[in-house]
């Protein structure tokens, strides 16, 4: 068995976005804090967002309350990373 490796919130959000949108590593590496998500990316429908939240919980070992989730969270890539960082550090 290979051991578990710590994943940074930024890397986890990037990896999940890449999986959902079917992007290459290079494309997702170009995401900046200002990159717009919800509204700009039609693939991010309610089912994709549900999958994204559950994947982040799983990959970062965090729990996300649905009360914490609002439209602002998915406005930009930076908002989502900041939220993930806040959850990881508690």
């Amino acid at each position, binding site marked *: *068995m*290979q*051991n*578990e*490796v*710590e*994943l940074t919130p930024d890397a986890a959000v990037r*990896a*999940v976005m*890449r*999986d*959902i*949108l*079917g992007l290459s590593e290079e494309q997702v590496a170009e995401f900046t804090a200002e990159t717009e998500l919800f509204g700009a990316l039609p*693939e*991010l*429908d*309610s*089912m*994709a*967002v*549900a*999958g*994204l*939240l*559950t*994947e982040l*919980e*799983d*990959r970062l070992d965090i729990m996300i309350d*649905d009360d914490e989730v609002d439209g602002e969270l998915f406005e930009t890539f930076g908002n989502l990373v900041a939220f993930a960082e806040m959850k990881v550090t508690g």
Partner: protein
Amino acid sequence: MTLAPAFVFYEFADRKEFCLHVTAQSPRRVMLVPPLFDEMNRMRKMMVDVMRSLHELEISSFLPDLPGTNESVIALEQVTLSDWQKAVQACAEQHQISYIASFRGGALTVADLPSANHWIFSPVKGATLMRTMLRTKIAADRESGLTTSLAELAARAENGPLELAGNIIGSELFAQLNAAEMTDMPSRRIVRLESDSKPSDGQIAGSALWLRAAPDDDLTMSTAIAQDIAGWMGQ
């Protein structure tokens, strides 16, 4: 020999369920157990691509439909996780398969085959799958002006079937899935994506097609999966 995918059957609870089958001229045979719910639809093409690659490696493969899915005559609403476990066992026995490769939530349906050899791709807890589906339901409700919570939906599921992301899930299936985790097997190889940091026995390059907004394929990944399965099965 040319590739000839065909439907065969397996019998479970006095019904015949479909099972996609690719025959290779070799005694080596493996059953692929699909992911559950939407993940199954998103990965169906990839599963069949794996079967095509396995054929090139001279391995016969079987991909059963779980009762209540695809063209099954029974409604999903009436199916339990125990049914799925018994159905997978029945398929393995009827087609004399001792190598089982299960994908994602499919790993929750192989518990009744403890003495088989198991290859498991990116296993997921039942509660994780249910949480995503409950979230989708909450988001859809919100769009129609309703406020629902996880706790409320869980309570509703105890008293009757619940429609989640287009699937009608009975109380027993809901409860069983919420508690379901991959069982320990004496012969087991767990394979994950390279981007997945959890412990594994092997890693494969590719991306999580089960998260994709629309069904997609990845031939490099399905070929790598088939090669890993072939290496695990040996000659």
